[in-house]
């Protein structure tokens, strides 16, 4: 290890220090919200600056185990944005329930540190360690409302299935290491290319591929490995759900990019059918089950499964020969982050008062009770539906375009995705129906959230619009971040 290595991973190091600083500040003034939030958000701002300083540079640290490239920069920025937004939304929810904001922020920043490390990992072992660093705090966050049996139940399910899937993934990684003799991503890719050229692919690789696919599919919540998602999402405190629905999901796709595209790219013809089947099953089942949900958190959980399916279409398009599929994944991940966090933020705002459920009836008459909140929720839901010209529309359009370009079975997958998108309109618009076409329940009180919360909502709303009206700004970043062009 040298000082230049530390320089390369500076954002990760700073993030760890920020998490520690949050805990120290809390020791100085326990129970005070403002200093915590200022430290956390200010610290994350520093992290963002350090990432932006690295933008455009490439490099590697620790003998190639960690790589700094545009993909790392893009994903790191996204993770920092996720963490900052979560902290902005969390205060108004945690405080009335007597849950500590300091621990929450620290654990969250640790989780994001793990995610940032995943983004830059180019070594199978580091990838695994980083993944664990990302998900372990996630289990803690899911069970953050210790007194709430649902929160605990969701956390236990998430923990058990999550650990199980980590073990499966590790098992798969072991196969790859055993066969190729290296854990470096580029080394694995080179070894596989040579093996393919010599026609000497070993059957063990298929085993490894199967285990790794299952492990990553668990993390992404792809069908049929999605069973932990609805319970974990519904049981968790709502700001945590907002984080879980985007943070670990984008993280899981970061693994897919580094592992499947980076290391196992030469085998893409072999994993393409798997991804196609996963994508088709994931979006279809996610949507069908979401239609029947009466709880908005649970509905958004199933819808996030469906969105995993759409993102997988982009991965499949890459395997089908269209490198632009990966840019589409990144665009989708970023667009989904803002619109979905926005939707969860509105749910959070409504649940500010303890005891308010996330049932769809809570939304009755929101358009009249709180026009701004209602309009924002409508914006996020329309974007999630994919109505142009909003963020979610371009996300889908780019994925579909890549799939259509790849042709063959992928065109059929594109058609299936669009039929699914039409079905999804039903459950998204159902919430709009409640907000605008039903009378408010009697006891529903106005939910005036704090200034920070409003700022967070404004960020997600403006991002949804900017992604929608000026997608070229974002595609410039996603195309630069697509380091796998050729």
């Amino acid at each position, binding site marked *: 290890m040298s000082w230049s290595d530390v320089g390369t991973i500076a954002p990760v190091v700073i993030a760890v220090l920020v998490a520690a600083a949050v805990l120290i500040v809390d020791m100085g003034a326990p129970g005070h919200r403002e200093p915590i939030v200022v430290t956390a958000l200010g610290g994350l701002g520093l992290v963002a600056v350090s990432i932006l300083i690295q933008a455009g540079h490439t490099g590697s640290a620790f003998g190639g185990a960690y790589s700094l490239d545009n993909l790392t920069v893009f994903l790191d920025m996204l993770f920092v944005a996720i963490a900052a937004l979560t902290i902005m939304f969390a205060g108004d929810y945690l405080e009335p329930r007597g849950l500590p904001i300091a621990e929450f922020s620290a654990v969250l920043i640790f989780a994001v540190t793990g995610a940032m490390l995943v983004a830059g990992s180019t070594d199978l072992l580091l990838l695994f360690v980083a993944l664990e660093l990302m998900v372990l705090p996630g289990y803690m966050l899911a069970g953050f409302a210790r007194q709430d049996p649902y929160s605990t139940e969701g956390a236990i399910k998430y923990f058990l299935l999550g650990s199980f899937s980590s073990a499966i993934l590790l098992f798969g990684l072991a196969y790859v290491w055993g066969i190729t003799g290296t854990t470096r991503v580029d080394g694995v890719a080179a070894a596989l290319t040579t093996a393919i050229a010599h026609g000497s692919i070993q059957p063990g690789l298929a085993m490894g591929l199967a285990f790794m696919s299952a492990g990553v599919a668990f993390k992404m919540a792809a069908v049929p490995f999605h069973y932990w998602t609805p319970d974990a999402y519904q049981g968790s405190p709502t700001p945590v759900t907002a984080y879980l629905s985007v943070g670990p999901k984008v993280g899981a796709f970061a693994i897919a990019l580094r592992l499947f595209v980076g290391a196992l790219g030469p085998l893409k013809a072999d994993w393409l059918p798997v991804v196609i089947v996963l994508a088709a099953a994931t979006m279809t089942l996610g949507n069908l089950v979401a239609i029947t949900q009466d709880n908005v958190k649970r509905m958004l959980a199933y819808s996030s499964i469906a969105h995993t399916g759409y993102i997988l279409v982009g991965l499949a398009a890459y395997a089908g020969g269209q490198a632009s599929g990966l840019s589409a994944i990144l665009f989708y991940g970023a667009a989904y982050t803002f619109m979905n966090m926005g939707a969860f933020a509105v749910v959070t705002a409504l649940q500010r008062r303890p005891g308010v459920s996330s049932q769809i009836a809570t939304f009755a008459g929101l358009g009249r009770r709180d026009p701004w909140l209602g309009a924002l929720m409508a914006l996020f839901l329309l974007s999630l539906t994919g*109505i142009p010209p909003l963020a979610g529309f371009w996300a889908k359009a780019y994925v*579909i375009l890549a799939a259509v370009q790849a042709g063959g079975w992928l065109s059929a997958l594109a058609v299936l995705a*669009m*039929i699914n*998108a*039409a079905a999804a*309109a039903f459950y998204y618009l159902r919430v709009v129906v409640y907000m*605008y*076409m039903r009378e408010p329940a009697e006891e529903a009180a106005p939910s005036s959230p704090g200034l920070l919360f409003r700022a967070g909502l404004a960020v997600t709303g403006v991002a949804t619009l900017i992604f929608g009206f000026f997608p*070229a700004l974002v595609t410039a970043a996603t195309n630069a971040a697509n380091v796998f062009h050729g």
Partner: protein
Amino acid sequence: MNLPILSLITFTPLIGAIVVAVLPSRRPDLIRRTTLAFALLAWVMSLVLLAAYAFGPAGFRFNEAIDWIPAFGIQYRVGVDGLSVLMVVLTTTLTWISVLASFGPIEDRVKGYMISFLVLEVGMIGVFVALDLFLFYIFWEIVLVPMYLIIGIWGGANRVYATMKFVLYTLVGSLLMLVAILATAFAYQVGHGGSWVGAFDYVQLQQFAATGGFGDNFQILAFLALFLAFAIKVPMFPFHTWLPDAHTEAPTAGSVILAGVLLKLGAYGLIRFAVPLYPYAAHTFAWPIIVLSVIAIVYGAIVSIVQPDLKRLVAYSSVSHMGFVTLGIFVFSPTALQGAILQMINHGLITGGLFLLVGVIYERTHDRTIAKMGGLAATMPIWSTVFGFFILASAGLPGLSGFVGEFLVFVGSFGIAPGIAFASIIVMVLAATYLLWMFQRVAFGTLSDFLQGLGGHLTDMNRTEMATLIPLGVLIVVLGLFPSVVLDLLRAPAQAFLAAAGVAVGG
């Protein structure tokens, strides 16, 4: 002339929506008048456009193009030919009439309603002026949201069901259309050495199609996707089932726009995109589509006879009338196509007027059941006279515009399919049956018990209501007597359409 007149017309309502959004909700009258002012402004500008276009050469004019997403050659590209100009004028005309017609009936959440209406107008005009397929798709989807809200918030008792049905039907079609549009652009890109420049440009794509750029199998798939989207919107039999529900539940002005403009979006899409881009597929499916059109014409008329509800009756008659439009498009004859386009305009004016008239009755009775009506001719003489006028126009009385459109479709299709033309002429008799029978039950006889019970509420039309109907009536007479005003504008688009469809143009 470098004035971006198309953008001005398209986005004037958007500016109006923003202005209305910042007005205080406590002043509904100010909101109503501001909305009307912007709708009228857009209308006046569209009339200027019509005049400017009519006294100039044919083809796409007033073009504007700005790069939007250069990586894929997607542009903000607009331009109009005679067909688009007429559709834009139809849209702006019906919009201000609808806004005016909403002054009385809409009392709840006026601000949201008026914003929805203005945004709706942006989408509708945008569809007619867009010459970039992607832009077209975006405007197409923008139309959906405000209409969803208008039906769902300000509609009748069963509004939520109706509006969801409307949205889901439309979305299934339009999302498949998106796949087809992307696939078309990609096929163009492949055919141009991987360059995306012009891949979404309608004029470029059409030239590419004319040179046989799109393969036969590709055309079949892409055409089917576009056709489904447009057929649902028209709506063609058997995709029409959302229409009666949506019409019945929508507020009056919503029904006017739905019948007057939204259905035309589908027909416009067929004429502008589906046939010229995929001529081989259009010919392959011409006969099945002609048969579906005739079924729609006959079925719509027969079902109209038995409808117990005034609005539902008018809605089903729309299915029948729009059948003439699709028939006129797919027989590939210049006369029939001009008739079909004229029929689009006529249907917008006549059916729009009928919905307004039904709305007048509903305002006073809060009922639309035909069986409960009767004897209105004596109590509401002005209303009954105007209603009779629109009924006769809808039934195709010579001298009024409804006759000309349908007649041209007959003449045009007779040379190609005499049997089909004959079958659809019988429908004229059916139309007279259901329309006049309905008129008789509503207007003649003694005042029904139900209406007697309303007493003094049953006043005749007021000035606002007349102000919404008189312009429509005047246009119906003018187009009935001087259809060449419109037909002259349509000659060039019709020839371009047939040339693109690969049909030799005679006469």
